[in-house]
Every structure is written in C-alpha cells, then in structure tokens.
C-alpha cells in the first residue's frame, strides 16, 4: 500500500460501498452512537435490565457480522490461515456484537423508556 492515509482509506471505502451507501452507513452509525449517548445522558444512569438484553443479543450481532463478511467474500471459516486471520475474525465479531448491543440498548431506551426497573 502506498500512502495509506485517512483520505486514501475514505476513498477505498467509498469505492467498496459506493459513495452514497458508505456515507449513509457512516451517518446511521453516528446517529445510533449519538442516540446512545443521548439516552445515557438523559437517563443519567445505565439501566441494567436493558443492558442485560443488550448483552444477551451480542452473540446474534457477532454471528451476523461474521456470516455477512464470509458470505460477501466467498469465504468459509476453514479459510482462516494464520493468527492475523483469527484477529480479524474476532474483530469483526466484536464489532458486530458491540454495534448490535448498542443498537438494542438504544432502541429499548428510546421506545420503551418507562419499563425502568431500578
């Protein structure tokens, strides 16, 4: 890779997904993150009931993310060939798990704010 700068990386991601879809995904991710921060600040504490459901949903996010990447790239788990592959695979799983947990938590807080048990 020559000149692996932020601009190059943005250009590559724009090309992978198309400029519109890429920035739409960035905006969706940013909106969910901001909504998550908003409900945390609004509620002034973490709702452990919602957090539990968010945690329980993490494996679904992890599996979905890994399946999506394997499907999109004609790959299978048997293609894992070295330590860096395991790290990348775990990274994808963790990203999917955390992303989905944040989504689940935020959605509960936004749409079921009155089921607070604490």
């Amino acid at each position, binding site marked *: *890779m*020559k*000149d*692996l700068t*932020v*601009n*190059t990386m943005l*250009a*590559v*991601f*724009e*090309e*992978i997904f198309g400029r519109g879809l890429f920035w739409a995904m960035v905006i969706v991710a940013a909106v969910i993150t901001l909504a998550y*921060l908003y409900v945390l*600040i609004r509620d*002034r504490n973490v709702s452990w009931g919602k957090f539990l459901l968010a945690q329980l949903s993490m494996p679904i996010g992890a599996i979905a993310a890994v399946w999506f*990447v394997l499907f*999109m*790239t*004609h*790959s*299978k788990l*048997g*293609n*894992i*060939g*070295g330590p*860096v*592959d395991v790290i*990348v*695979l775990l990274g994808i799983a963790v990203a999917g798990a955390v992303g989905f947990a944040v989504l689940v938590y935020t959605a509960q807080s936004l749409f079921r704010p009155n089921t607070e048990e604490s």
Partner: protein
Amino acid sequence: MKHILAKTATRRSFLTLAAGGAALAATASAQSAQAQVATKARIVIIGAGAGGTALANRLVKRLNGAEITLIDPRKEHLYQPGLTLVAAGLKPADYVLSNTTDWLPEGVTLIQEAAAAIDAEARTVSTSGGQTLGYDFLVLAPGLTLDHDAIEGFSLDLVGTNGIGALYAGPQYAAATWQAAQAFTETGGVGLFTRPATEMKCAGAPLKHAFLLEDIGRSAGTRSKMDIHYMSNNQSLFGVPIVSEKVRMLFGDRGITPDYSHVLKAMEPGKKTATFATPDGDVERDYDYIHVIPPQRAPDVIRQSGLSWADKWTDQGWVECDKATLQHLRYDTIWALGDVAGVPKGKTAASVKWQVPVVEDGIVSAIAGTAPTETYNGYTSCPMITRVGRAMLIEFDYNNNLTPSFPGIIAPLEELWISWLMKEVALKATYNAMLRGRA
C-alpha cells in the same frame, strides 16, 4: 455538578475532534492548492487504461492550464485484476467492465482513435482517424498486445469450447474460460496451464488459475479425477526465487505437477493435443483442458516508431526507458507507463499505482524547471490466490526482495484469509481510487 462537568468535557472533546478534523481537511486542500503549476504545456497520453487515466486525474490537479489529451480507441475500461475471478466463476463478466469516460476528469480531451504513428523528433502523434497532434510531453501508456496468432492452431473463437480457456483476452473470454474450466472441474482429465516465454502481465495469474481450479475440484469432490500440470516457461515457477520455491512447495502439497521449460507453440483443438517447445525439442501432449496465455508484445505503434529497446526484448519491443524515472533514454519529453515500459518487473495494476506518481513528478518538474524526486523501485504486488478464500500477499521489487506492506502482521508467504479479503474486497476499490488519482 458531576453531570455538568461530564457534559462540558464531552462537548469540549467533540469540539476539539471537530476542529482537528477541519484543520486536517484544510491542510489537505491547502497542499493540493499549493502544488498547482501554471502552464500552457500540451501533454499527450497514449492509452486511457489504468496508467493513462490515473495520470490524467493527477495531472489536472497539479497543473493549471495544461492541455491534456488522451488517445484510446477503446470505449470500455477493463479492471484486469478481476479477470482471474471471472474465469473461476467467482464474479460475472461485467465485474471488470466500466466506461473509459467514467473515470476521466473534466478538462481533458479524449480522442477515441488509435495512435497510428509517433514522430519523436517532430514531437507529433498521428491517429488512425488522420489527426496529427503536437506535444510538449508524451506519455506512452497503450498497454500491450496479446499475440494469439503466435500459437498455431489457436483462435479466440475457440475459447470456451473443446476444453480451451484464455482468460487474458477480456471479460467475455474470461467468462467463456470458466465454462470450459468448470467442465474440467466436473469431469476431470488432464489440465495444462501454460504461460508464454515473453514478459507478461501479472505472472501470478496462470498460477492462480491452476490453484483455483484445483481448489474448486477439491471442494466439489472431483479432485481425484483431475491431473493438473503447470507448464512453466523456464526452470522456475515465478520470477522471484523465494516465491518460486514457495509455489513449488504448495504445488507439492496440492498435487499439481510442474513441467519446467515447456512453452506452448501450437495446438490441434480437434484432437485436443498441444505442442510445446522444450530444450529437448518439441513435445506433444494431450489435454482435456488447456489454459492458453499467448506471447505478449508492445503495440505495433511503439515498435514502428523507434522507441523500443534495440538490444533487449527485441522480439517484444518494450519502450526504452530509465527503470527508476521511466523517462525515455533518448527523448527526454517522453515517458513510459504501465505494461509497455521496458523495465525488468511490473506489468501489474499495483506497479501502475507506483509508477504514476513518478511520471507525474517527472512531467510537473520538467514544467516547473525543478529536479524530480520520485523514483520507481520496481514495486509489484501480486495477491497470489491459492484457494477460494485464501491468498498470499506477495510484494517485491527490482531486486527480488520481498517488500511487505504490513511486515509482522501479514506474512507474505503465508496463505491467509486476510490477503484474500484484500483481493476480493479492497483491491478493486483501491484500483478505482487510483484511477481517480486518489490513491
């Protein structure tokens, strides 16, 4: 109070981040604005493929007022690194197709004719339509010619029938190659994977094709019926010795037989036999599937204009240029870029990516009257696919040194999923970003 503090802190960090981002963006745009050189220079680029297009996009950003003209008769732009994937049934033919005009910047002229003659003394280029263009700077980026006629008995209309594949010839031929190749992976028999004795674009592609079909047969449970032979043009399997050894070991593991110093010269499609030139004379071999890669040469316009090396590659005609600056050795207003360049390595898109900034720097420096600083070290990258889902990210230079981009993280001689991901997902995106002059 705590909450207020926390809120303030959060807001402050957000603001700092935003300010940092804005400053970064401002620096980037300031850099590109600073670099513009005012000129009335006439720059002619022969070829609007990977090299010509990427260079045009970069030159319009660096030069203000230059008259940039590209000459290329082909309406379609081909993403050639994708052809191996098409020929293995992993991508459709249109995966590699786009329009030449999709990638060209505003403010350049495209003449959709072939370059017919170059007069380097008078500094003119004539086109097939009878136009004559004067130039101050000329870039030779026409790609190369596949000399299919050099294989006696072969013609392109045979591709896809009678067990004949030829993926280099273009997207429709790569797709037809998969028809013949798929039949081979289903019914088995003898498969011969050839390569020419000339310089060639992406010397990894014939290896990838053999590896991929072997893997597809293995997954389909038909591998035991397939007898796979790799017909090497000399005593090695790849130009870089350490890679050649690795491939030899992989071939051993996978049951692919290397037949060294076997160069395809003729075939009889009806009888399914092929004739190879070997050090011990011609050898005839039967096949059920054969992958043909013909000899490769510089286009006639280059060879007939006296711009080729006189003492090297005389049967191929690559442009005589300095291997570090890519500037022509006899005409200092001419540069070679991409496949046509007479340099020891680098007929790949990755090489083009490294060569374009060198040619750009050479031309802009010549206009500005400064000394150029960029040089090309022969860098080439080959994501050597060894299975569907695995590849080796091999990068090397003129000296056959491995030059890994991610040392200690992505091992060049290890079959990895991440290297496959790069080829499958990131490579075309990087290529497209390169075409736009952004990578």
